[in-house]
């Protein structure tokens, strides 16, 4: 009989000290050993490729908490690894994944956004190479990123190619400002030919960043007022006292998802930035 009492006491003690297995899933750090080893392998692989380890570890944890399987996490993170392996900035790919996680995007959408970001970076590098702008150098990284984001926004390769072709003799900052202007004007709904012409104007006239921003704001404002692209350009340079010859404007086909907004529904104003 005493031995039975001992067994009962031991069983009670065990129950009190160790929670039941069904609780394990509710503990914050409870990750099955198999999943944990998969995650570790993923982090090791990314680190070997050149991705920042601490950022990757945090991201893998977030992906796991969001319910993504190891395979799904791999699909989401592989573009970042590929970017790092090929000398492209992997941090901007990770940033896209972080944005998607914050917005509670589905695993497939996350993987697709990550892949698209890598694709945009590759296309940007190709464009910069074609324009002899040394896409591999550290100094041209901001221009590479700006070009990639413009491509992601839907700006065509041809338009950016034409802009980058005029970069000769201009500073990296001026070229970057022209590409950013092209993206902003494209998103504002101006015709591609006008966007290209205005971006070229910025480079040909050797405009500094502050002036390029003024060009963009002027064009956006006139577009809101319903002015046509060619008229905007003419008014812009007339206002500057240096009228430019209007370009031969080709009508732009309606770009789905870009020009769908009603310009009259967007009142002018915020965010209001002071002059840099």
């Amino acid at each position, binding site marked *: 009989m005493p031995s039975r009492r001992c067994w009962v006491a031991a069983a009670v003690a065990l129950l009190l000290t160790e929670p039941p297995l069904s609780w394990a899933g509710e503990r914050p750090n409870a990750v099955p050993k198999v999943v944990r080893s998969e995650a570790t392998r993923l982090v090791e692989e990314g680190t070997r490729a050149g991705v920042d380890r601490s950022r990757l570890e945090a991201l893998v944890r977030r992906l796991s908490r969001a319910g993504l399987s190891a395979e799904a996490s791999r699909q989401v993170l592989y573009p970042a690894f590929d970017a790092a392996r090929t000398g492209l900035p992997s941090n901007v790919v990770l*940033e*896209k994944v*972080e*944005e*998607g996680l*914050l*917005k509670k*995007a589905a695993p497939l*959408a996350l993987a*697709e*956004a990550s892949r*698209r970001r890598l694709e945009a970076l590759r296309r940007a590098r190709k464009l910069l190479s074609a324009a002899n702008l040394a896409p591999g150098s550290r100094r041209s990284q*901001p221009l590479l990123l*700006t070009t990639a*984001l413009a491509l*992601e*926004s*839907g700006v065509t390769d041809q338009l950016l190619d034409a802009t980058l072709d005029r970069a000769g003799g201009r500073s990296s900052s001026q070229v970057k400002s022209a590409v*950013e*202007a092209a*993206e*902003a004007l494209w*998103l*504002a*709904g101006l015709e591609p030919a006008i966007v290209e012409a205005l971006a070229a104007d910025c480079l040909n006239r050797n405009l500094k*960043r502050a002036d390029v*921003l003024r060009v*963009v704001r002027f064009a*956006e404002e006139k*577009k*809101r007022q319903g002015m046509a692209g060619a008229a905007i350009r003419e008014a812009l340079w007339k206002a500057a006292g240096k009228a430019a010859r209007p370009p031969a404007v080709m009508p732009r086909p309606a770009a789905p*998802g*870009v020009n769908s*907004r009603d*310009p009259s*529904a*967007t*009142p*002018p*104003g*915020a*965010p*209001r*930035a*002071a002059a*840099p």
Partner: protein
Amino acid sequence: MRDEREWIHALLDAGTPAGDVPSDDDDARLVKSYRSALALLEESRERAPEGFTASVMAALPDGVEAGWIDRLRSFWPDRGRWALPTLAGALATLILAAGLALFQRESTQGLVPVTFEVHAPDAQRVELVGSFTGWKPGQILLQGPDATGHWRATLRLPAGRHEYAYLLDGREWIADPEVAARRPDGFGRENAVIQL
């Protein structure tokens, strides 16, 4: 014995004994011989010839400037070994200039003040999230609503291109309706794009 030695030392140092001469005969003889030796030494001291000090001073280089020039010259390496110090000096100047330029750029081209404003009269909490926060929530909360239902935040952001969206009550995402440039975010919504 110790007293005697002290007496002798005092005699040699000062020339006059402190206290009485030791009484012991041997010691007295010793003292006598010391005294005669001392007198001999004093007599044999040669005096410097007249004008010796003036001739030494005349032989020294003239003026303070000459001394400084010689001192400066001593820093310059002989036998054409000038390349290393010159290059080191040039490199130090270059590093200093680059550092100053970098510091200038960071301090002058730094941050641009910008005011974000959104109309959300029914919201309890409005956050601003974007590329400038690394898409991390909870860092920038807008103040409001004011009497017209607007929420507002003024920040200083680095010059450049930024993407952002407002998060209302932690669940509803909206792109800034007051900017012309908005782009699909790839997750079924839109982000606003601004250039500063």
